[in-house]
């Protein structure tokens, strides 16, 4: 195992402590729970935005706390859901009277635990609503869209939900915009090499030297289809086609894209991917208004990448581009 870590059992605690120490102007530990991170300065009079999920995906989830983004996050162990108690604490910390919107990825443990936490905090008088992000088109057919997993597209939902909440919008309006975003996002990814769980010290799955996995999960679980490795262009063409088959766009539609590295895949390869994505959409006269290229949602040092399409018009566009303060986002 070639990790720069101490005791694997302290991996999560130490990494979030480092996060808070490194950016004390942005992040803070919740007073009542070391597995809950909040903004350094609590806002007043806005809907709180809460997320939570497993560790090992930085900047997802905790990283996206900040002005114009999230208010609090419950931090689970590596690739594991945070507990009900942690989520409930995050909700309490994020609430300041206007209610809380929970935005989370569609994973069994997370969904169940958030549901329970919302019941508990609801009984304490906190109004909550939940948006379950389901952007991974490889994980279920369009007919079963609600069963899709949430992957990198989640960050776009964080962004617009965070932005509209910052304006003082109601829980209802915040929920509606986040739901609209969730329905306007499609992602598909490939994994080319696995990652290593700190506790296990060995790769999450084996993949031979000439193979890739289409539709990998960000928890290191196998993808839907194993294929021989291809050159970047035909691979990207295939991924773009799958996205466009799933989400019909018309000429002149405006979109943002995110080309996200799962960790090890370098920026150079993301830009080779982005070049082809731009060429493909240009041919269809679909307008890429903005490209986000980098490591936004990772699985530690897994190699691979995902392509996310976000159809933006009206308020989605406005709130995607509104200013935010977060170390992992450039406006």
């Amino acid at each position: 195992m070639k990790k720069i870590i101490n005791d694997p059992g302290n991996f999560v605690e130490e990494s979030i402590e480092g996060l808070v120490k490194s950016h004390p102007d942005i992040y803070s530990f919740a007073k009542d729970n070391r597995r809950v991170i909040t903004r350094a300065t609590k806002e007043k009079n806005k809907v709180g935005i809460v997320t939570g999920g497993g560790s090992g995906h930085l900047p997802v989830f905790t990283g996206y706390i900040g002005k114009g983004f999230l208010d609090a996050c419950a931090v689970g162990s590596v690739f594991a859901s945070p507990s009900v108690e942690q989520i409930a604490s995050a909700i309490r910390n994020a609430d300041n009277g206007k209610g809380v919107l929970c935005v989370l990825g569609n994973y069994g443990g997370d969904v169940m635990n958030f549901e329970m936490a919302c019941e508990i905090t609801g009984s304490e008088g906190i109004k909550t609503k939940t948006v379950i992000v389901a952007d991974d088109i490889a994980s279920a057919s369009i007919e079963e869209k609600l069963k899709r997993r949430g992957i990198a597209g989640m960050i776009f939902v964080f962004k617009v939900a965070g932005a509209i909440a910052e304006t003082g919008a109601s829980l209802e309006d915040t929920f509606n915009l986040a739901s609209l975003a969730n329905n306007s996002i499609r992602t598909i990814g490939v994994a080319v090499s696995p990652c290593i769980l700190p506790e296990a010290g060995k790769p999450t799955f084996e993949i031979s030297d000439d193979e890739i996995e289409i539709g990998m999960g960000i928890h290191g679980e196998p993808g839907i289809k194993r294929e021989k490795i291809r050159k970047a262009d035909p691979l990207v063409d295939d991924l773009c086609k799958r996205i466009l088959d799933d989400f019909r766009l018309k000429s002149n539609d405006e979109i943002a894209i995110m080309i996200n590295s799962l960790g090890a895949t370098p920026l150079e390869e993301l830009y080779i991917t982005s070049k082809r994505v731009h060429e493909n959409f240009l041919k269809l006269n679909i307008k890429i208004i903005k490209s986000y290229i980098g490591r936004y949602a990772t699985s530690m040092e897994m190699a691979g990448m995902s392509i996310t399409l976000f159809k933006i018009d009206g308020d989605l566009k406005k709130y995607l581009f509104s200013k935010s303060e977060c170390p992992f986002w450039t406006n």
Partner: protein
Amino acid sequence: MLNKKILISIFEKLLNKAKSSYDSFNAADGQIGDGDLGVTILHGLEEINNNISKFTDDMGFNFKLCSQAFVKKSGSSFGTLIAFSFMNISKNLKGKSECNHEEIVNIFETALKTILERGKTNLGDKTIADSLNLIINKLKDNQNYSEVFKTATKQALQDFKGKKIKIGRARMFEDKTKDLDDPGMFALNRLTEAF
């Protein structure tokens, strides 16, 4: 009959079995999922056993401790469903120091109900719910618990051979899952070897 002493011995046996099955549970889950089922089960049972000295004659309280153990140690579906189940069981058994057969059946019924509700699954989706369902059916006319657990969880695996898993990410693999056991059902069956 179930009481504090028996419960303690059950959890001790389960822990041993979970230790020796750790890799096989992870592997079963890894074929279609994220490979953490061994971790979930082992860590949860370890935490229960770490707190076993706190067990009292109040079975409701004991199950509450068990629920807290799984809440604390598990972030995966299986662990969460078990934690919720233990919590509801604990409410039913509050103040009770002994469970008779009827109450034991009720423990499994509560677990099944909780799992279907919280997991938003139906019977027939090929999950641990289906194993529990068979246990409950068999318990109705058999009080040899060890025998029921073993035969029911085994039969559940057999009944679902050739059927697709309809929940979680396993669903993505479609027909591939026909030939595979559901990892949760597989684990329940293996764990009964403890008795």
